[in-house]
């Protein structure tokens, strides 16, 4: 059952601020800012974008993309509500390749007491491809987070989350995942921050269910010249229960659905371009873990993530993202007998860089490229993927 987290977020902001309000400023009026995106893209890859060897169909490249977005928000004395809706038509003039992506985000946060903050986020995405139903999917991620922090920057937080995705034509790759975690955070020097956290995840999918433990640490520096952050996370399976009658050989070794990664690429590009849209340049955060290889339950995984961002003058921002990943373990999509589900390893490097330049008050140039390379001792998981996009965002 899909819970309406969006409704919950609205109710949260509507709660009276109470006697603890320190700044009784009246709420701002609702703000809405629509945008139009026109993007060209290049897509080169050697993977199976739809997660099945039965469909060896590539993506159109080069391709045109047209998107529409609207950002909205409202700020109160002790809370705020922000959201966004985004729709993109990929290859709108090519009947066979035409596809539609929709994404939406909503975030509501409220401060309480001295140093408390409650945040609810919900994000969804849906993809439809009229000529190729197999690529259809939807995904939703909702998070409820409570944090307490001191003015010094020390604090702790707890959170619960629900992530799920459904692929009507590839039922095996769907899943739902619930998690609960806690973390502590503290300053490191004048400009540094650190966090240590742990999380327990429970998953349920067609072929298996189980749980895993996630432990992570993060270090970040926020200097006058830029932002740099580094995160190391360890995923450790704790219990996996295979449903042998539901496993299949049809998917081969393919555990990922590359088309989700493509959708995420455009989504990131568009949302990055929407900064400054509402509430004095502030927008919302990405609650979706939309990795195309999210279906990796039952495998031990180590992930190192690094991100740097720098402002290059008053109108230009550049950023770079690196993800290194090592996984080992069985593919729980495959039957236990024969040895299809034997442990295997794969390594991945993912790079993404983005540049945004504001041409005028309403027009911005967007440029983004990403490269993913996967190595594995199973040949079908050796692939690369390159995506590039260049275009403009026009705000109204």
């Amino acid at each position, binding site marked *: 059952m899909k819970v309406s987290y969006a409704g919950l977020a609205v109710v949260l902001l509507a709660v009276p601020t109470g006697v603890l309000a320190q*700044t009784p*400023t009246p709420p701002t009026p609702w703000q809405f800012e629509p945008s139009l995106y026109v993007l060209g893209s290049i897509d080169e890859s050697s993977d199976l974008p739809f997660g099945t060897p039965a469909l060896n169909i590539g993506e159109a490249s080069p391709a045109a993309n047209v998107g529409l977005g609207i950002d909205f928000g409202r*700020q109160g*004395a002790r809370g*705020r509500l922000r959201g966004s809706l985004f729709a993109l038509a990929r290859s709108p003039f090519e009947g066979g390749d035409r596809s539609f992506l929709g994404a939406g985000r909503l975030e509501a*946060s409220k*401060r309480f007491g*001295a*140093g408390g*903050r409650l*945040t609810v986020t919900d994000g969804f995405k849906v993809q439809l491809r009229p000529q190729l139903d197999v690529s259809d999917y939807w995904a939703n*991620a909702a998070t409820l987070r409570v*944090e307490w922090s*001191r*003015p*010094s*920057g020390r604090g702790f937080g707890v959170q619960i989350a629900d992530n799920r995705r459904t692929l009507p034509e590839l039922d095996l790759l769907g899943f739902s995942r619930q998690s609960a975690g806690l*973390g502590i*955070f503290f300053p490191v020097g*004048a400009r540094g*921050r*650190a*966090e240590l*956290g742990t999380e327990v995840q429970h998953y349920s999918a067609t072929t298996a269910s189980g749980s895993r433990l996630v432990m992570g640490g*993060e270090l*970040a520096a*926020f200097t*006058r010249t830029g*932002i740099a*952050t580094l*995160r190391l*996370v360890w995923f450790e399976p704790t219990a996996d229960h295979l449903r042998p009658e539901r496993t299949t050989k049809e998917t081969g070794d393919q555990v990922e659905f590359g088309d989700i990664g493509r959708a995420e690429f455009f989504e*990131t590009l568009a949302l*990055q371009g929407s*900064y*400054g849209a509402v*509430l*004095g*340049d*502030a*927008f*919302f*955060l*990405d*609650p*979706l*873990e*939309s990795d195309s290889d999210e279906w990796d339950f039952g495998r031990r995984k180590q*992930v190192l*993530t690094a*991100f740097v*961002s720098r*402002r290059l*003058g*008053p109108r230009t*921002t550049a*950023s770079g*993202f690196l993800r290194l990943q090592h996984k080992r373990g069985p593919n729980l999509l495959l039957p236990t007998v024969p040895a299809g589900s034997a442990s295997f390893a794969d390594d991945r490097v993912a790079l993404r860089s*983005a540049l*945004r330049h504001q041409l005028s008050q309403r027009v911005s140039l967007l440029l983004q490229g990403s490269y993913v390379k996967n190595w594995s001792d199973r040949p079908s998981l050796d692939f690369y993927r390159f995506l590039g996009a260049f275009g403009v965002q026009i705000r109204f």
Partner: protein
Amino acid sequence: MARTGGLATIAAALLVAMPAPGADLDALERPLREAWAQRARLVEERTRRMGEAAALADEIARRKDGSRSAPRADRGLEDALKRFDRVAGQLDEVDRKIADRERAIATLRRRFEEAASAEASRLSGRAKAGSVGRVARELDAIDQARRRVAGLGASEPAFRPVLEVSRSPDDGATEIRQKLLLLEAERDRVMNGIEQADADARVLSARILVKRRLAAELETAARTAGSELELLRREAENAAEALHDLDAQRETSSRHKAALVAALAQVERRLDELRAALGQLALPKGDVR
């Protein structure tokens, strides 16, 4: 025997170390007093830094007006903002420390009140069992401690309300002249206050500008990096909240300035009235105009 002597020594040491009545309150009052003193020092530091920031804020305000049309002025604004960024960071740090002290003061104050109430209840119970005089003295000591604690922070420098000075029917020329002098001093004080409010508003505006850019940069970074990077998300939220708090401060400052402007108008009216009254007194009797 030696063992008995050792125990006696320990017992004596414990008796000496045992707190006298009210010692708990003293022990709670001292850190509270110290926290207030630290806060006062921080507030002074903040005032000093605001003064340092004022010149840069003026430059930013000028360049901001100019940058709407000229790209070169835009670059100048960028340079000025970079220079201001360091000062803004220091002001943020002082604000953070003040908030930290205020939080500590609130906690200490609560503990003190709880301890004072508990002690007063205990003493009230003892009064029923006798030794009323001693209990009364100790209760009085608690009341005094409470008054001292309540008075902490009451001497904070704040803008004193403008004196209400007007002409009385029996005022002579001397009294009116004295009142004029008093009101002129008040007018100067209010004008200084307005000037200070303007300077503070310019510093706040520059801080908001710098913070808004930082918040935008963090939000963009948080979105671009995705949900994996938790610190980016939190820092972006903190920056957005700090921005909101600065906006609220600007709103308060603006209301304060509006009150001062209204007070200045009132003082000017009273001055005009008194000058007119003095003029009438200076006229020869029977001279009607």
